């Protein structure tokens, strides 16, 4: 023992105290989660920044996430609501595993851990489906040359670089107008686009909605397409997407992707945990604290999703 630490012939502090009444491992998990909280906060804050800055061309979430497996038609919010339910449910099974860990009941811990892993995997599968749908696209849009404001028939329009086809107040799929020949889903060539315009012109009840949500009447819309239209677009990549501003797609991929990566890591950790529970590693150690530590991480993943759900899908 260092001489400087000794007062009154007793060591000032020889370790062993737990000022926070929590073990080293649990504290470190908490500190990691604090940093991760700040990371996700920064992502969502920058999402908010871009959304405010480009509010004129930001898509309405209900127009984007409308699909549900095996169901036709528009069901906004339903699928993400299901994903949220799955994740909350897996959080519950995780707490139950932690609870039975405290009671040292190995078989119950195994049962609830397996259910948590199933829940996490179901969530990952749902997210893959959602990504697939987002990338593949839905109704499609027209890319327009919106570098400046301009006028048709003495009406002034602000710039817009994306326009959606509307029919009776609902978004209308461009597939109905382009005979379904999308060899390359993101880009189609000039001849296709001329055909697209004439198909649009022949259906008198079609309107065009610009990205700032102004609706053009049919005749104005045809003029607009001839003057400003460049090509049709379907789906999304990192450069552009059919839904709205490029950054919307980028943030979608980045934030839900980063969260999905957390879920994936969580599932891997849970599987390692399960193997160790089965091998009696924690029974020999005398406590199931590792279940608690991984549990903290798992609940954090659920916590982040609660915020992503609100700011990506609801607000």
């Amino acid at each position, binding site marked *: 023992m260092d001489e400087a630490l000794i007062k009154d012939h007793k060591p000032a502090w020889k370790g062993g105290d737990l000022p926070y009444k929590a073990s080293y491992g649990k504290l470190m998990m908490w500190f990691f989660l604090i940093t991760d909280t700040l990371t996700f906060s920064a992502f969502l804050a920058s999402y908010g920044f871009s959304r405010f800055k480009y509010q004129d061309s930001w898509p309405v979430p209900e127009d984007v996430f409308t699909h549900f497996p095996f169901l036709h038609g528009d069901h906004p919010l339903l699928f993400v609501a299901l994903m949220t*339910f799955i994740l909350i449910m897996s959080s519950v099974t995780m707490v139950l595993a932690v609870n039975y860990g405290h009671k040292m009941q190995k078989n119950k811990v195994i049962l609830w851990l397996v259910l948590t892993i199933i829940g996490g995997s179901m969530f990952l599968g749902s997210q893959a489906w959602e990504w697939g749908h987002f990338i593949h696209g839905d109704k499609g849009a027209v890319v327009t040359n919106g570098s400046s404001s301009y006028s048709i028939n003495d009406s002034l329009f602000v710039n817009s670089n994306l326009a959606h086809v509307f029919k009776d107040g609902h978004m209308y799929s461009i597939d109905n107008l382009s005979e379904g020949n999308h060899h390359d889903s993101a880009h189609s060539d000039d001849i296709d686009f001329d055909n697209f315009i004439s198909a649009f012109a022949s259906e008198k009840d079609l309107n065009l909605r610009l990205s700032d949500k102004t609706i053009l009447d049919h005749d104005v819309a045809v003029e607009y397409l001839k003057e400003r239209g460049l090509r049709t677009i379907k789906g999304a990549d990192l450069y552009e997407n059919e839904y709205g501003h490029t950054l919307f797609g980028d943030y979608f991929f980045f934030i839900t992707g980063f969260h999905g990566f957390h879920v994936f890591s969580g599932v891997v950790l849970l599987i390692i945990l399960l193997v160790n529970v089965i091998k009696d590693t924690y029974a020999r150690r005398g406590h199931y604290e590792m279940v608690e530590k991984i549990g903290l991480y798992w609940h954090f993943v659920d916590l982040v999703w609660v915020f992503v759900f609100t700011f990506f899908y609801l607000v």
Partner: protein
Amino acid sequence: MASETKGNWWIWKVFWILLFITAFEVALGMIKPPFLVDTIFLGTKLLNHIFIILTIIKAAYIILEFMHLGHEKKSLKWTVLLPAMVLVPYLLFIILSEGVHSYLMI
């Protein structure tokens, strides 16, 4: 730890609360009551404020109950909560007001 002897009922209680709040949010998001959509408060719809408040309530239940932070020592509780409670609103205030500002400058 007191919870070692507790049963499981509190877990299911929190589950039902979280489920109910989420269902309520989804219902509001689908119905979109015109009154809540048309009323603008602090730069956004009243509906969005409701969503944010409900989200924070859900987050509180997850952190304090599921992550057990509400039953930890007070010093640990604040060590975890304070950095987020100070830095996140600060970050949001700066970044979102800059976002509105740069929108007005386009």
